[in-house]
């Protein structure tokens, strides 16, 4: 938790972002939010369980109107778990937001937001196959880019080796990654 002076310092830094903060705070009323300042956007993080509700609120609120989902991806922080990152944009209001969810390594599950933005469908499939994050309630949880047989190896995780192509071909495409 931030102390009061830190809070003041933070508020001084936000400066011109004041407006967007109040908009987001209003939209996300009743949902626990941690605020952070990015280079170009403001960043808020929410609990994994609340992400679908938060996204729906951000889309439907008349002031925030985040109707456009730019991308979904994840970042592997190794021992510190993973974060799922959503980049949102509002075509009407022309403001944007980075929404984050932090996950522990023992519970890599997050609700799907395909109900909120259909655009999330492929983006979540890609994130799922690359990082092994499960998107609960996804309508079509197949692999997107990877061959369909590979379901136990997650290439974009930090502990996944950069295997030589010969290794993959030699063992068939069902490479398990055990010798990593």
């Amino acid at each position, binding site marked *: 938790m931030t102390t009061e002076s830190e809070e003041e310092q933070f508020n001084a830094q936000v400066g011109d972002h004041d407006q967007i903060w109040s908009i987001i705070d209003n939209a996300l009323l009743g949902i626990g939010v941690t605020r952070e300042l990015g280079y170009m956007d403001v960043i808020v993080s929410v609990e994994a369980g609340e992400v679908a509700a938060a996204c729906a609120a951000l889309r439907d609120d008349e002031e925030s109107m985040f109707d456009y989902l730019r991308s979904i991806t994840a970042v592997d922080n190794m021992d510190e778990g993973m974060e799922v990152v959503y980049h949102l944009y509002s075509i009407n209001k022309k403001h944007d937001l980075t929404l984050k969810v932090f996950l522990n390594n023992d519970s890599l599950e997050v609700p799907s937001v395909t109900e909120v933005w*259909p*655009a999330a469908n492929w983006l979540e499939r890609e994130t799922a196959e690359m990082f092994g994050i499960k998107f609960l309630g996804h309508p079509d949880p197949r692999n997107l880019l*990877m061959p369909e047989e590979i379901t136990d190896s997650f290439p974009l995780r930090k502990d996944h080796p950069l295997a030589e192509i010969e290794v993959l071909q030699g063992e068939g495409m069902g490479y398990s990654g055990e010798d990593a």
Partner: protein
Amino acid sequence: MVEIVTQSNVSAGDFETQDLLLNVGPQHPSTHGVFRMVMTVDGELVKDVIPYIGYLHRGAEKLCETMDFRQGIGFMDRTEYLAAFNAELSYVMAVEALADLEVPERAQWIRMILIELNRLSSHFMFMGAFGVDTGVFGTPFIYAWRERETLIDLFEEVSGDRMMYAYFRPGGVAWDVPVNFVERVNEVLQSAEQGISDFDSLLTENEIFVARTHGVGAISAERAIALGMSGPSLRASGVDMDIRRDQPYLKYDQLDWDVVTGEYGDVFDRYYCRLLEMRESVKIIRQCLDHLKAGPILPEKMPRMLRTPPGEVYVRTEAPRGEYGVYMVSRGGNRPHRLKVRSSCLSNLQALTELTVGQYVADAIIILGSIDIVLSEVDR
């Protein structure tokens, strides 16, 4: 003995047509690369489309995480090989934001000129390939190739390469443009302008072309937004969104140009939006040439090894096919901790099923052609 069923015993309701599964690709000239789709066809109508992608997945994101900031530029070229300057731009802008680098004026104007020229060459490519898709084989394709060739010659003079330029650097550009650059750009613009008019008269009012494209594969503005489409494919549905104007980068806010939007969101609008956009690009480049003054092209004190403080940034630029975003996370050091490329083609391609269902089989290919995908950007 064979039982003969007479016509009178069968009512119309008893007949069932069987759906046909039609596989297209992955290696098929009309899929613009290695892309496979399985269509469920009922007579001439498409009932369902399941796209399969990933044939060109090379893990560019993972590879970039193992290389320092300058080495990653080459990989960005290879994700979007028809508009490589645009792809590089997002990447170097992300590094610049993290490393807090100031880009000199001249470098910014050079970048502006090159990315807009690249938009022209990319759209010419679209015009040619799209002409082939609609059945106007030959003439437009060769015309497009001729125009694109003059542009690519210029890129080669500037960067030394025809497609994989690797010319932008964090902080500016690799080296200064040739001495006759302004003359050459003017020359190329003149021929490009002629080329655009040629296409306008060749396709826009061509009776066959219009008959094949009007009202085909339409999508509403709401659905296009919800599906995450961007670029000309989104603007064709009447959505007034262009990152160059809405969240200006480089020098777009200092110039006078218009955002082109369509009305019906059909195949024809997606084509025509691109055509009009090319005229705007010519307008932008002409203005940029006036601003191009002598000066440095890289910041004075560039470190040999570029390091950035920890942080993260999402940079978006308007590439010819839509929003090309680069999400870069740095944990300090000389390489990104995580690099994500937001591909405009991936998000646009996601709308394919919705665009194609209910249309004729013969139109499926021109609908695919009209969203102008580059498969290496889809798969990365």
